[in-house]
């Protein structure tokens, strides 16, 4: 019978450290395999469609409501002080800096990372990953590289969609609840995003887009890595899928703080 500390270590600490180590290795290996990209172009396009195009409607729907919530929460308070004209500015900044990349990443974690974990997990427990290995096919190049790259490319595009839709959502509240006219709202938005930064993009906008690139990469690595570590049949795949979503969301929150600190603060 092992002592409680050993048991705690082997059930909690060891798997977490192993998973983290595998995630770091997988990230490095994926980046090292970038020269294989041309061979994976078809798979990359498939994954961009699955991860990006098929998530647009969910991201847009959530972003629209987030934009409305932000406008409502802040706008009503501003109206008490007669400052509701600034609502466009505040919605634009909060969407661009924070809400759009965060919400997009959470939607992608829940939908795409879970799908990746389930797909690769099923392949693992059905010996398909072992089959690739015995055929001398690199599973990271064949499976992980197109998925990770597709998410890394699609996350900022979806974030840009969320920015626009969220701002429109905020506009709906500005017009219907705060009695502003839409052109005045857009003027306020424009004022907020006028400050030019990298590549001529508004500084707040590119800060959010850089965040989303990191989130996209991270979510896909967690999804694929969790799947590749799946064990013990259908129950193992289910556990892996759960862990992929949970780990992704926790990492999104932690990285969000540090990226905000680096990019904005």
């Amino acid at each position, binding site marked *: 019978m092992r002592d409680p500390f050993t048991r705690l270590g082997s059930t909690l600490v060891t798997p977490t450290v192993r998973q983290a180590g595998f995630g770091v290795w997988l990230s490095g290996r994926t980046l090292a395999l970038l020269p294989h990209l041309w061979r994976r172009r078809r798979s990359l396009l498939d994954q961009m469609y699955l991860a990006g195009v098929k998530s647009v409607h969910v991201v847009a729907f959530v972003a629209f409501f987030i934009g409305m919530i932000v406008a409502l929460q802040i706008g009503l308070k501003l109206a008490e002080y007669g400052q509701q004209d600034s609502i466009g500015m505040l919605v634009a900044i909060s969407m661009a800096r924070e809400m759009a990349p965060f919400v997009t990443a959470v939607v992608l974690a829940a939908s795409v990372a879970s799908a990746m974990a389930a797909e690769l997990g099923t*392949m693992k427990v*059905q*010996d*398909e990953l*072992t*089959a690739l*290995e*015995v*055929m*001398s*096919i690199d599973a990271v190049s*064949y499976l992980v590289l197109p998925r990770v790259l597709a998410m890394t490319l699609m996350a900022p595009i979806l974030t840009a969609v969320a920015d626009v839709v969220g701002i429109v959502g905020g506009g709906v509240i500005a017009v219907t609840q705060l009695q502003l006219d839409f052109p005045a709202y857009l003027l306020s938005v424009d004022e907020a995003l006028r400050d030019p930064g990298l590549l001529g993009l508004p500084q707040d906008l590119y800060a959010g887009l850089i965040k989303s690139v990191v989130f996209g990469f991270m979510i896909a690595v967690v999804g694929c890595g969790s799947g590749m570590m799946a064990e013990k049949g259908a129950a193992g795949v289910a556990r892996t899928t759960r862990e992929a979503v949970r780990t992704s969301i926790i990492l999104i929150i932690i990285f969000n703080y540090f990226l905000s600190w680096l990019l904005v603060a």
Partner: protein
Amino acid sequence: MIELRGVHKSFGPLQVLRGLDLFVDEGRSFAVMGPSGSGKSVLLKHVIGLLRPDSGRVLVAGNSVPDLGRDELRELRREMGYLFQFGALINWLTVFENIALPLRETTDLPEDEIAGRVRRVLRQVHLEGAEDRYPSQISGGMQKRVGLARALVTEPRVILYDEPEAGLDPGMSQSVSELMRELQGEFGITSLIVTHSQLCARIAADRLGIFDQGVILVEGTPAEVLASDHPRVREFLGSRRE
């Protein structure tokens, strides 16, 4: 061609291989029968280099498998095929794409030559016309044949079979076993077969070993072994009348 000498392997406190000795001549076929969960698949995984022994030697075509570097192991694996228990086909690829996969990924062959090779192995496993179907659209027996075609398409010198009869009815099991024998006879492929089925061993193997408690207890031609008086062998075979 395949040689295991004094191979030991444990997983934690569980000793799976306890000084296993096994030898398969080039171009011959060796079947290993034994109880479920006794470690027969572990044996195959040592031969293909998925597992390393705690001690002992594993040689394939004169190469010490545990001592090979990553690239050397990849080269060796290109000369080996592996038929998985349930086929292990990639489910989003068609039958054709599954079989073409190792050629597309590990060779520079032009697409028309790959197509020619795929059609040839499909004929060999009697699956002409199934090219465009997905694994979920074909039966377990057909999946096994596709797995075999995928193992054959690289023209290997060695094929490892992990319970080729698993999940098949007796008729289909006999048909797959006959196909294995046919391929071995035609191409002189060295085969190591892990099986539960006496029928499969009788049809497909030149030699048979009964595996129990980490070693081969009895070895000989299938007829000799199946008639053995060894009490453990009688106990095992008695519970598996076919």
